[in-house]
């Protein structure tokens, strides 16, 4: 409950922060998206209040995480998200730490690789700027189950991706010392446990080397700010 409230506060903060970005248009070339048909999804953790299965409405999701090149465009168009400008409450000191400067990822960074060291606030703002939104945990996990190729692309050293409600499913209370297995629908899904334990410890301003994001939307290519 508290987490939900915090998320709502976060959302309001981001909406107000995002208002300054509205005047800047998203890139014309939209990232390729695929339709994930609606259906029932079995969450990793059992929900005591409702039936186990959760219905996920049809949605579109990017076929790959947002790249350094794409994020560079976003930063250029939105001065508030430059590394030198960003406020600490929106991104910690690791924000884009591997980039050489505000507008130069540098030679060591492959522009086509997924962008990492971006906070939840930054990822959320990017998706809004692109006319999309972050996928929910349920959408992300459901998409990964339906289409595993989406998350297992060889050559990417990206392990985790931001989701809209990343810390809403807390595993900590029941998780200590192996207890979590009993409350899980599939205790053998160790990859999912790794993702949940990672998400569970995140705060929205954290920026990490192994953490990137992709966007989702109700319709193909997004709808909100699209020009």
């Amino acid at each position, binding site marked *: 409950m508290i987490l939900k409230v915090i998320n709502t506060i976060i959302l309001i903060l981001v909406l107000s922060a995002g208002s300054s970005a509205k005047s800047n248009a998203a890139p014309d070339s939209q990232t390729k998206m695929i339709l994930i048909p609606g259906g029932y999804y079995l969450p990793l953790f059992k929900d005591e209040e409702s039936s186990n299965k959760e219905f996920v409405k049809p949605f579109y999701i990017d076929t790959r995480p947002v790249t350094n090149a794409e994020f560079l465009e976003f930063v250029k168009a939105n001065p508030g998200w430059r590394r030198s400008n960003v406020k600490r409450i929106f991104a910690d000191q690791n924000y884009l730490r591997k980039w050489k400067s505000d507008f130069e990822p540098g030679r060591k960074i492959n522009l086509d690789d997924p962008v990492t060291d971006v906070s939840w606030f930054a990822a959320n703002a990017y998706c809004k700027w692109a006319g999309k939104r972050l996928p929910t945990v349920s959408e992300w996990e459901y998409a990964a189950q339906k289409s595993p190729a989406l998350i297992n692309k060889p050559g990417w050293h990206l*392990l985790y991706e931001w989701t809209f409600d990343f810390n809403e499913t807390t595993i900590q209370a029941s998780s200590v*010392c192996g207890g979590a297995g009993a409350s899980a629908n599939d205790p053998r899904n160790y990859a999912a*446990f790794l993702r949940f*334990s990672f998400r*569970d*410890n*995140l705060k929205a301003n954290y920026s990490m*080397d192994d953490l990137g994001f992709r966007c989702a939307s109700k319709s193909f290519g997004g709808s909100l700010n699209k020009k």
Partner: protein
Amino acid sequence: MEKKKIIISLIIILSSLAAAAAAIYFSGCGEYSNKVEGVEYANLTYAPDVPPAIQRNHPSKVIVNIETMQVEGRLADGVKYNFWTFGGRVPGEFIRIKEGDVVEFHLDNSPICSVPHSIDLHAVSGPGGGAAVSQTLPGHESVFSFKADHPGLFIYHCATQPVPLHIANGMYGLIYVEPKDGLSPVDHEYYVMQSEFYTTGNYGDSGLQEFSLDKALQENPTYVVFNGSVGALSGDNALHAKVGETIRLFVGNIGPNLTSSFHIIGVVFDKVYLFGGTNVTQENVQTVSIPAGGAAIVEFKVKVPGTYTIVDHSIFRAFNKGAVGMLKVTGDYNKEIFSGKQSDNLFYGSDLDKKLENNPDSQQDVSENPANSEASNENANSIVDIIAAGKKVFSSTCFACHQPDGKGVPNIFPPLAQSNFLNADKERAIGIVLHGKSGPVNVNGKQFNNTMPAQSLSDDQIAAVLTYVYHSFGNSGKTVTKDEVSKIRNGK
């Protein structure tokens, strides 16, 4: 008046001396105070070392700083594994503190780790043993404090989801909360930790091995090891002591699945603190059961020099999965405690035993054996008796490889039957039985390349067995005498 003054000042001096003495007694080596005083950093050691006993007579604030790291390392010769560790090694550092200490624990997760980590110390009274408050993302630090109320030996391990994976990958160690009164002094203290590894490849398969969830779920480890890898407690890494010294082992078993049957071959534990508690639960113990996530303290004195093998006596784990360590003891032999080998005799079955019982002469000299007594009695000259004695030697020593019919095993063990190699050179044959032979040899046109060990047989036995072989299996019928064997034995 003068006298009275002197007496008073004497009383003053004496009483202040007494007060000073009392102060020294109570603050120095005497009663253990419950007041937490001072701050210090914990002395951490890697296995098999244990930090020295704590001399304080009061609890302190103790700062423990451990960094979680993911490192590729050696699991066995030629076998690598991507270990998740406390402090860069498996097992993690040994933490030694004193009963009543207040520990300020700093858990740092290396920025190059790919997953969050945490710590559950079984010595902690509180939710998750610290796990709930120490969940730490890569590049972050968690700090929490606890009071070490319970003395004893405890496991610590990572408790981040999925917990079994974090444990299976190497995240565990021991924390010893030394009781107020300490333990009796010993000559050596060592840290031994048993654990399992589950790899996709078989035992010994080379290269970087991945974690196998299937084997872990079946509780069927590929490796069971002491101190993190095969050989981490043997050879150059063996434990050492001298004859007459006392040893205390702090033994932990993290599992993650198996209960250990901890045993040292050739040692009886004088004292056992079962489950790592504070009481000596048994004396004179052979094997200690240590549950997964549990510990034990064992104490013993080494009395005879030699190498002692430390095993999980669930013995296939020792023989086939790596659960072997060594304790090397140097010093003088005490033959009253252990004689060493006094004789090496042949045994022909219980019938002959009965025969020996009626022959007190052959029992007096332990170097004498049945074949000798047969060969050296009145009928020694009888070739029939010699061949009969030789057949017995063959049936106990040679037949396993050369086969009862002397035909050997194709490509592995050369034949003795109609053997050109055997029949060509009697002296060479004697030499091979005496000293063994290894490397390529051509017998009856076939190449063999194997090793035959030197045989510990008497000259009489060798003469008898070779005479038997030469008179059997279609061979040339040569006779070999004791003198011929002696000559070659001494000529070497």
